[in-house]
């Protein structure tokens, strides 16, 4: 494979809370190739959103801090930069330009006092130095691209005049307006109706083909991942516990948590293999203030043995481009 577009190594991010320091992301490493889609799956609090905000260097605003790690990005001119070491000004030139982001809440993600056309044009004017008139033309073009009917008059609409699905399309238009090399989509379909969800997924996929960008797709929904991702990283309690090509994840999971997630989805191969009964994972994720020593999934794991609770388990190769954080990965079976 050619040089990756994005290379995250040993990322550690923590937040100060009234009860103490919380390490939300602990030693996360992954790479993302050009044009590739990596799905990041995990439940709430697993650190998937914090990972994406860390890449954008937006965690400080929420009271967070990146403690360690490098985030290397290959830019359009072939140069490689470590986002961590950039000045604020140079980082701003990357945000919205090289890396763009779509968020979970389309209803609150747009500034209510600006027209959507202005908000799409804002990034273009900033990064590409277009005039007001050119930016408006680009905004209309982007609205058409994301499938908004009558884009010329819609550009003058305010966010409150649009539905949630339309607003998410506008968010995508904003994100793609500068043709970023990387799109980070943080649960972009979670707040939408199921039919609209499918449309938005379709839209992201087709635009990805058109622009040739990479996508980091964050979701808690394995079904969505199956549809959109090339590779999947499963996160649990701030760590990646398994990473594999999307087919591998579903056919040969190598971590009990990954298997547990699949068994809890109605109609998935893993759940039907268990006599059609849905299995749930007992217990709850650990309190982020006191994660257990050793494997963090150990308290809920059906395969747990004493060795699991002793040392930190490493993310080890278990197959071709397949890594898992489990010492009994050979015994994880889709039964």
């Amino acid at each position, binding site marked *: 494979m050619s040089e990756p577009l994005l290379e995250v190594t040993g990322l550690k991010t923590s937040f100060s809370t009234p009860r103490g320091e919380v390490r939300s992301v602990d030693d996360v490493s992954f790479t993302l190739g050009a044009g590739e889609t990596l799905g990041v799956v995990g439940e709430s609090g697993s650190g998937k959103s914090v990972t994406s905000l860390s890449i954008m260097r937006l965690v400080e*605003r929420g009271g967070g801090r990146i403690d360690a790690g490098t985030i290397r990005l290959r830019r359009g001119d072939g140069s490689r930069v470590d986002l961590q070491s950039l000045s604020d000004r140079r980082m701003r030139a990357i*945000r919205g330009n090289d890396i763009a982001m779509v968020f979970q809440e389309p209803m609150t993600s747009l500034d209510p006092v600006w027209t959507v056309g202005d908000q799409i044009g804002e990034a273009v004017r900033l990064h590409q130095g277009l005039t007001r008139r050119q930016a408006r033309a680009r905004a209309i073009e982007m609205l058409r691209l994301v499938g908004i009917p009558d884009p010329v008059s819609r550009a003058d609409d305010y966010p409150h005049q649009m539905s949630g699905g339309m607003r998410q399309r506008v968010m995508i238009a904003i994100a793609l307006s500068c043709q970023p090399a990387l799109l980070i989509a943080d649960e972009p379909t979670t707040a939408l109706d199921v039919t609209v969800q499918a449309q938005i997924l379709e839209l992201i996929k087709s635009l990805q083909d058109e622009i040739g960008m990479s996508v980091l797709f964050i979701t808690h929904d394995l079904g969505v991942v199956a549809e959109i991702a090339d590779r999947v990283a499963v996160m649990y309690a701030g760590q990646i516990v398994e990473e594999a090509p999307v087919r591998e994840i579903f056919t040969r999971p190598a971590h009990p948590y990954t298997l547990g997630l699949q068994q809890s989805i109605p109609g998935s191969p893993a759940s039907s293999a268990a006599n059609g009964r849905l299995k749930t994972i007992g217990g709850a994720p650990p309190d982020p203030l006191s994660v257990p020593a050793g494997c963090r999934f150990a308290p809920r794991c059906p395969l747990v043995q004493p060795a699991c609770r002793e040392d930190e388990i490493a993310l080890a190769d278990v197959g071709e481009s397949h890594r898992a954080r489990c010492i009994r990965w050979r015994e994880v079976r889709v039964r």
Partner: protein
Amino acid sequence: MVRFLSERIASAALTVVGASLVAFIILRAVPTNPARLIAGPFASDDVIAEVERALGLDKPIYAQYADYLVGFLSGDWGFSYSTGQPVYALIAERFPASAELALYAFLFAFVGAVLMTVLVSFTRSRWLDRFLRIFAFVNIGIPPFWVSLLFLMLFFEQLGWFPGPVGRGPAPGEAVTGYYTLDYLLAGDVGGFWAALRHLALPAFALALAPMGFLIRLLRANLLDVTHEPFVTVLHSKGVAPLSVHFRHILPNAFLPTLTAGGLILAQLLGGSVLVERIFVWPGVGTLVIDGILRQDYAVVQAFIMLSAFIYIGVNLLVDIAYGYVDPRVRRS
């Protein structure tokens, strides 16, 4: 926009009618008979009936209301029986003094509060923020008449930087608007303008402190709320510079409540301040009204109530219109 404006104006007009009704009814409901008051305690019933006829008090109540409304709109606000002068002239003579003081106080309060709060919230400095909160808290707590006295002791008596309690200072040769600073400027007299400003400074600042504190607290809270809105994170993710995020996005979203409160404060200040006017010997309407109340001079009080209502409604209409410009959701709904 035209529909929005006409709706606002129609609703303002309705409010004026309502306010005039209230003022009218309250004054009729007072047990004292104005005719008896004017004619004096020893007047015969015939004389009182004569005065009642002269005042139109023998007409049916709806006709009295119509007379009153038409009179008010045409500038006939009745006679002040204690001074024998037409009320309109009395108020017209004193209103500019109060209004000028009010406008400068409002300018201090509004501009000061907005500038300080926006800059402090932009720096995100915890230390400055704490200072601002204490400043606002103290401002709200201190009564303006007490501040007036403190200011006089410090800036007039001790330091001699500002003139003492001598009212508005020397009047401009030609009274065009009745606003001294404006009249001096129109006459091209910079020295006079400066003198008028120095006379205004202490009372205006004393009046401005409490509203300033109130506006600081309001705007600070709203700015803080908007800063945590998801769309602000989106703006940062687009690479928009913090300065632009703050002034072009956060501020317009946080500004509406401050605008509303600012309007109410301006209207309230325009009604004059009795205590501060007294302390600075300011020839404004506040003093006039207090005297009117004490002497049961109804025409004065009634005219003042109506005038205040007009000012409130007028200022609120302006605020409503300004709203439409600031927030598209108001304009379209």
